[in-house]
């Protein structure tokens, strides 16, 4: 399956992915509604994008009481708006924090890989987000561990 490979070393923190994502997912240029989120590290000197890995369990999907989350043609877990009642059970079932709730529409929403043409990939100027054939993975763990080591050392000192 093609997945979103997240390559934090290339991320400049420009947030174009968030703008593009929010527009495609919710119809407005509103990074606060993006389902890909860029985290700053080391006092806003480095950044990493984070989104749904389309995990094998699909915790959100199996938790939905009305079957409103399905696997789409791109292999992504996708919320069916007309089925979702907005109960938020999926949001506490997902252990990655990558399913969200839109307070305006009262529906859950998440990365659906834009049905196979991810807008974040298109928008990223540095190929920090790449849509490619791969096993999904912990893309950010090593980067985050390295970029937080100094912070933790300072705090302990």
């Amino acid at each position, binding site marked *: 399956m093609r997945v979103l490979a997240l390559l934090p070393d290339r991320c400049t923190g420009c947030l174009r992915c968030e703008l593009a994502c929010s527009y495609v997912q919710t119809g407005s240029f509103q990074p606060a509604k993006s389902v890909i989120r860029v985290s700053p590290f080391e006092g806003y000197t480095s950044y990493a994008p984070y989104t749904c890995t389309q995990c094998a369990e*699909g915790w959100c999907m199996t938790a939905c009481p*009305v079957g409103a989350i*399905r696997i789409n043609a791109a292999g992504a877990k996708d919320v069916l708006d007309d089925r979702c009642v907005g109960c938020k059970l999926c949001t506490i079932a997902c252990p990655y*924090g990558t399913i969200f709730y839109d307070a305006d529409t009262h529906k859950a929403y998440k990365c659906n890989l834009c049905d196979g043409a991810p807008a974040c990939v298109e928008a990223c100027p540095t190929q920090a987000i790449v849509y490619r054939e791969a096993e999904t993975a912990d893309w*950010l*763990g090593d980067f*985050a561990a390295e970029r937080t080591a100094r912070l933790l050392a300072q705090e302990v000192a």
Partner: protein
Amino acid sequence: MPTRHLIIGGGTAGLNAIRTIREEDRGASEITLVSAERPYSRMVLPYYLGQSIAESHVFTATPASLAAWKVKTLIGRRAAALDPEANALTLDDGTRVEYDDCLIATGSRAARPPIPGADGPGLHSFWTLEEARAVIAAVTPGRRVVMVGAGFISFTILNAILSRGARLTIVEVAPRILPRMVDAGCAELVAGWLTRHGVAIRTGVTVTRIEERRGTRILHVKKGEALPADVVIMATGIRTNLEWLRDSGIDMAEGGQGGILVDDHLRSSIRNVYAAGDVARGRNLITGAPEVHAIEPTAQEHGRVVGANMAGRDVAYRGSLLMNIVEVCHLDIASFGQWDDAAAEVYTAVRPDRSQYRKLLFHGGRLTGAMICGPAKDIWTTNDVGILKGLVQSGVDLSAWKSHLERNPFDIKPAFMATHNPGRLLPQTVLGRPSSSPDLPQSVNA
């Protein structure tokens, strides 16, 4: 002869078991479902009450979808007695159903306290679809609704009652609201928020008697003025439906929340009899202790594990994580795991001006419980709700992060990333395989 599976109870656990059996065996076995009601999702009844969905939306199976799954149904019938030696169930109309293995998933019902007048006509519970219909008919604009009980169930229907134009008062016997879902600090913040949104809250109030006076119900209370109400909803807890098993010989826990004792495959003391959902005393993921978790996600996971085992797989259940989320007047409140643990090391933080609250509970380096509260428009701009769940679920060692989290309980995302939680969680599945899209009816003509 194909294996004969018997599913007793058409709620979340039962339906998840059926769906999983069919995912595993593609229709090779016989399945019989005994259910007192048509299968529906209790979780979504508040949205039916709030008029954001039609009644047809609540059903989790239809005659057509059950037929497509090759499920023989006995709907409208209740289980009356189980004879594990004869592998047979007797129904309330005397029908006998034989099985090779069976699942007990008879769930819970709303409980009423022993208050004079609390069981009279015109007093409501909100648990079954039938009860929901009665509440829908009763709660109309301008009516004075009094809800007895400020627990999770009462909070799930709070928005819906307000949206129907009713005036709402909540009465709670405990000194604070949501006594089994959040701590005192969070409860205070939520109570303040609700008061500002026009909900009257009276805590520490014991209702002693409910009487009817010319169509109005008067709730007499210990100390203080009586409350008049047009509609009374009793949200005073639930009781498991296990009485019918009294003579079955199946081992059950005495007292407390009770429940059928089960092993890690959710088998009862009788090897071919499983239990799932509210009636099962399953393993707590965090403590390992046997416990009843009467919540939707536990019923789902129990049901799926039982379904896989019934279909011949060998799936051990890791245990369920206690968790709840509810939104009231656009304020989200969620708690995970052992949030009420006096032995834990606790870090809390509150931003009173933004109605935000966090609580982290540790045993050593392990996060064993968490709480998050904040306005919906704030809370969903972070990944924090699920990340808290992920940290509790993974049990990762956060020792290196504790002093940071003590100072900044709101700043959990870097700790989640840097301790490689996605990498730890990705191999985890409930059934030891990737999940399939749920096969639920898309549209239902009731």
